[in-house]
């Protein structure tokens, strides 16, 4: 073994300089980062149900999008907000946006501005072409902003949105917004999608879903996801997206690859690379043992 020239193929694999591992991984990560491609991330059932529910909406119907996260959960949750918002705008589904997390309104506003820009351009999703169109505040969406005491706010919106949001984020009377015209409470919207990185999600489940029978779907950070699966089983929520992976699954369903897919394509290839190295190591291990009659 100590003599280099005596080394067989398998031994050399066993003793492969780990810098090859580093180099290959670096090349894979950098190249997949720059090469545009679509990784077929298979969608799980709980993400598919959300997509189907929104896809099934008619023009003019409305949903409530709750953006309840702070900048620290941005990487995982922003992609979800983006893809769902764009899907709604394209389908001319009205979006009512609330943000019950203290630093949430900034996140929400950023998402709105970006999606308004991108919807101005024509695009084709899942074979359907959408012309670019101008998204108008108050017509296509309403941004209600932040209010304290989120439990009461969520309960209050079951009575009337105006209870706590008599004016929207831009200080405009809710009653003057065309999109809010026939919208009093949860009865007038089709569903609530809560994208949350905090305990606001508990209030949505407890006070909106349980109390007013609101159709509720969740988008959560990776670490939170496991804790909320039981609600899926009990039917309290109809769909659930977890972390970057859930976001990427949704982007794929929506045929709108964005930040999550960008991350996931690198992830998939990096994971594949590591697994490939593990397989090579095991081939080397068994090969060199077989040769020595072990």
């Amino acid at each position: 073994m100590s003599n280099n020239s005596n080394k067989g193929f398998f031994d050399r694999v066993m003793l492969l300089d780990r810098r090859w591992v580093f180099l290959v991984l670096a090349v894979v990560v950098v190249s997949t980062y720059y090469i545009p491609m679509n990784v077929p991330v298979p969608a799980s059932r709980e993400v598919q149900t959300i997509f189907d529910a929104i896809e099934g909406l008619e023009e003019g119907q409305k949903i409530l999008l709750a953006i309840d996260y702070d900048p620290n959960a941005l990487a995982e949750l922003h992609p979800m907000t983006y893809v769902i918002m764009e899907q709604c705008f394209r389908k001319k589904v009205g979006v009512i946006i609330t943000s019950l997390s203290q630093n949430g309104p900034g996140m929400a506003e950023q998402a709105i501005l970006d999606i308004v820009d991108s919807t101005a351009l024509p695009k084709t999703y899942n074979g359907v072409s959408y012309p670019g169109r101008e998204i108008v505040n108050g017509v296509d969406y309403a941004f209600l902003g932040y209010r304290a005491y989120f439990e009461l706010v969520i309960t209050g919106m079951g009575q009337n949105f105006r209870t706590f949001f008599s004016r929207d984020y831009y200080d405009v009377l809710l009653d003057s917004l065309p999109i809010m015209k026939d919208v009093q409470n949860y009865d007038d919207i089709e569903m609530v999608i809560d994208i949350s990185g905090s305990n606001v999600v508990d209030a949505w489940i407890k006070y909106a879903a349980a109390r007013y029978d609101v159709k509720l779907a969740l988008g959560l950070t990776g670490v939170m996801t496991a804790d909320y699966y039981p609600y899926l089983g009990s039917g309290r929520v109809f769909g659930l997206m977890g972390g970057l992976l859930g976001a990427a699954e949704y982007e794929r369903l929506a045929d709108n690859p964005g930040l999550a897919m960008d991350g996931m394509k690198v992830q998939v290839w990096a994971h594949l690379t590591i697994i490939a190295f593990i397989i090579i190591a095991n081939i080397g291990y068994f090969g060199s043992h077989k040769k020595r009659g072990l």
Partner: protein
Amino acid sequence: MTLQSRTSRNAFWPGFRLAVYGMMFGIVFSSSAVLSQEATAEVDNASTMLAPMLAPAAPGNVTVEDAPNDAGHAVIVTFSQSQAPADGQALVLGYEIYRSLARSGPWKKVGAVPSDVDVTASLIYKDAGGSDKSSDDYLPTETDLFYRVRAVTADSTLYSDSEVSAPAQAVGQWWNSGRNPVFFFVLFFTLLTLYFLRVAKQRGDSLYIRPLAGIDAVDEAIGRATEMGKPILYVLGLGTASDIATIASFTILGRVARKVAEYQTDVIVPCYDPIVFTIAQETVRTGYMDAGRPDAYRDDQVYFVTQAQFAYVAAVNGTILRDRPATNIYLGKFYAESLILAETGAIAGSIQIAGTDEIAQLPFFVVACDYTLIGEELYAASAYLGREPLLLGALKAQDYAKAVIVVLAILGVIMSGLGYEGFAKAFEAVG
């Protein structure tokens, strides 16, 4: 503009409804003249939104009692909810809790509770105030407090107040009975340890302990370092001296230093925390003294690096690659840097022994190091290395405690299965 009613209740009380709207928009008009025209146009539409015009039933039975097991700045308010709304009554969204130092007020709003779907359920609010007199949420101790609960609705003009509660006082307690289970466990374990310390004193070191590969490796590793003429790197981790894992690591460091001094090789200890650094210096120096070579000890063997996680790692990595220690020992608290250190050590070809009680890092040590002390094994290591009867005695107490836990767990599972929930409850510490 269609005037479609949203709920059947909308049909009632049209006159009253308009009156309320008049009031609401009266405020709006005065505050923003620009919007007035728009708002007038919206009145029809807006007027569909609030239908019930009667205040809800009042909540009742407000009782207040001292919150148990605290310093005396909290009370617990219990009340029954408003009855289900009769025709025309507004639905209750939640309840606001008001406190006063006198029956007649003034009232201060201290918090709010959302209403429950089941209106027959009583609601509980814990009014936990501050202990600082100057702070806004100060709740005086041993003073009569009065409480009142207000049922609030979607319309801020429609609410109803409960009767004022009987006075109650917040009182501090001498003993936290909620922590009784913890107290009994600590007491039991202390007695168990003391008992086995006595036994160990009488019986000497005849107590059996199973071998731990990671511990046996320490001696071998020191021998290897001597043969190779290379130092040993001892990393105490990112813990402070207040982490028991670090304290356990000091004991092992002491033994390693002594062995190292006997074998006439070197130990390098880069430190992250300044107190850990001072203690480590003392420990290593003592080890050298015990080995009879006090003059071989140099102060720069044990040095402080920096208190920033990744800067510390950068420096230790450099040390590993440049000094090429024969053995790296990582014992203590470790976080994300665990794998960085262990892989760099593997690159340098060092034998590596690790041990931590940080669960998240154990997988990485197990994968990347030659030997890993998992969780409790780290705490047992000092007894293993020293073989002092007293330390072994404590180990025996740990084993018996584990046996008790296993028995209690099985018993608890069976009891809760049979419906005796009180059994498991008895182990629950509150607060």
